[in-house]
């Protein structure tokens, strides 16, 4: 059975590419990096590996147990079935698309995934800004159907690792557009810049991991336009470089909302989209986008009947 972690092997490459991008920034875009922001991003990356060590075994054990219910059997030497690797990679990317879409549309998952979007910068260090709390959000359950199909958990872990490696290089402003055929099929820096943008036109678009075709198929694709400057981060920017706040702020905000809400609405604060409130005091990404679509100049409505400063999470 293959026993290696592609992401661990890729770490030296990650470091070299980050260094190369820093040198590019030195001459072309000195604002593309910020020391504290970079430190927070890299600390996120380090912490996420610790979380992986702590909780990865639990997920693996769960999936190995689930294997007994599998529909198809690739045999004892499943790793020798070459085409299963290709099928697993594609299906895992589809799994990633739907996980990622839920991660933006369900606050429970967003509380974990927001970590990755919390930087106002978009560079290769941002790619390493990975969550510490993914295990608690239980996003790994999106892979359960693939285990039940018969793909071995180790195979899924390896193809997911390659998926993550692919996504590293697209977190950059150093690359404009790739050739048209490539942009049509693959996720690219251009497509993923859109995903990290807070401009209303771009909110909750381009969820793809490797193949952008999923967004085209499921109606969430938005091309990058040169008409307006992209702003990165989340709708309500943190305004803080405090690492622990960056890690846990959305969990805290969500639980505060649950505790303050009337009983009949409490669960809604867990499963509805970020920005949803029972009294309409905040905006969801759909509302912001609709306001933008409505003419870019809707009269400035009284903003938030409750205190907008102390308010919790908003969409990004």
């Amino acid at each position: 059975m293959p026993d290696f972690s592609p992401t661990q092997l890729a770490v030296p490459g990650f470091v070299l590419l980050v260094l190369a991008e820093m040198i590019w920034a030195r001459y072309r875009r000195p604002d593309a990096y910020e020391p504290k922001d970079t430190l927070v991003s890299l600390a996120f990356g380090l912490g996420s590996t610790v979380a992986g060590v702590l909780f990865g075994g639990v997920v693996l054990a769960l999936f190995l147990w689930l294997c007994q219910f599998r529909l198809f059997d690739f045999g004892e030497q499943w790793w020798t079935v070459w085409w299963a690797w290709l099928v697993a990679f594609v299906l895992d990317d589809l799994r990633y698309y739907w996980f990622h879409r839920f991660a933006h549309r369900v606050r429970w998952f967003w509380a974990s995934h927001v970590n990755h979007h919390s930087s106002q910068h978009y560079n290769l260090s941002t790619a390493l800004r990975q969550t510490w709390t993914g295990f608690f959000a239980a996003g790994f359950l999106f892979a359960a159907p693939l285990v039940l199909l018969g793909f071995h958990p180790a195979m899924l872990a390896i193809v997911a690792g390659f998926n993550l490696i692919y996504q590293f290089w697209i977190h950059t402003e150093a690359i404009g557009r790739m050739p048209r055929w490539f942009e049509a099929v693959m996720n690219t820096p251009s497509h993923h810049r859109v995903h990290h943008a807070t401009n209303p036109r771009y909110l909750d678009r381009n969820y793809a991991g490797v193949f952008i075709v999923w967004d085209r198929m499921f109606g969430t694709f938005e091309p990058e336009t040169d008409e307006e400057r992209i702003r990165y981060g989340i709708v309500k920017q943190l305004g803080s470089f405090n690492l622990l706040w960056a890690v846990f702020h959305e969990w805290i905000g969500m639980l505060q909302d649950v505790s303050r809400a009337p009983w009949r609405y409490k669960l809604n604060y867990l499963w509805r989209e970020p920005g949803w409130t029972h009294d309409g005091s905040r905006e969801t990404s759909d509302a912001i986008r609709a306001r933008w679509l409505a003419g870019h100049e809707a009269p400035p409505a009284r903003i938030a009947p409750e205190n907008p400063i102390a308010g919790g999470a908003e969409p990004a």
Partner: protein
Amino acid sequence: MPIAFPMEMPPPALLQFLGSLAAILVLAGIVRWLGLGAPSRFTNHEEVTVAADEVHHGFAPVATAIDREGRAALARNAIGDVMLLRFHGNKVAGRLVGPGASAALAGERLRIDTGEPRFGAVELEIENASAWMQAIDTIKPAHHA
């Protein structure tokens, strides 16, 4: 002959963690050494207007004030909402000033506490600070009802 260590060696995972920690500190240091991400400042009211719209889409200031240092600014729209903007690194973060915020005036220095601990309080040295203080004072819960 085996080498004797005065104390037990830390496990490889801990060494890997400490090595990685050192590496990320070095990388962040390189960003500083290369002079990347130098602090930015507001230099004109157009920049404040653009930033206010970026913080809250559709926010159209009719009045703005820039701190003497340029690190923070205030914007007010036609119906009296006030937005506080400040630089966070070399990017802008902002908050609408709500009823939970407080403001204090000392000469031309206006101190606004957003009521949000992690965003913090901001001191601005601006013209017409007292007028801005009044604008913030009018933001009461009833005003937002």
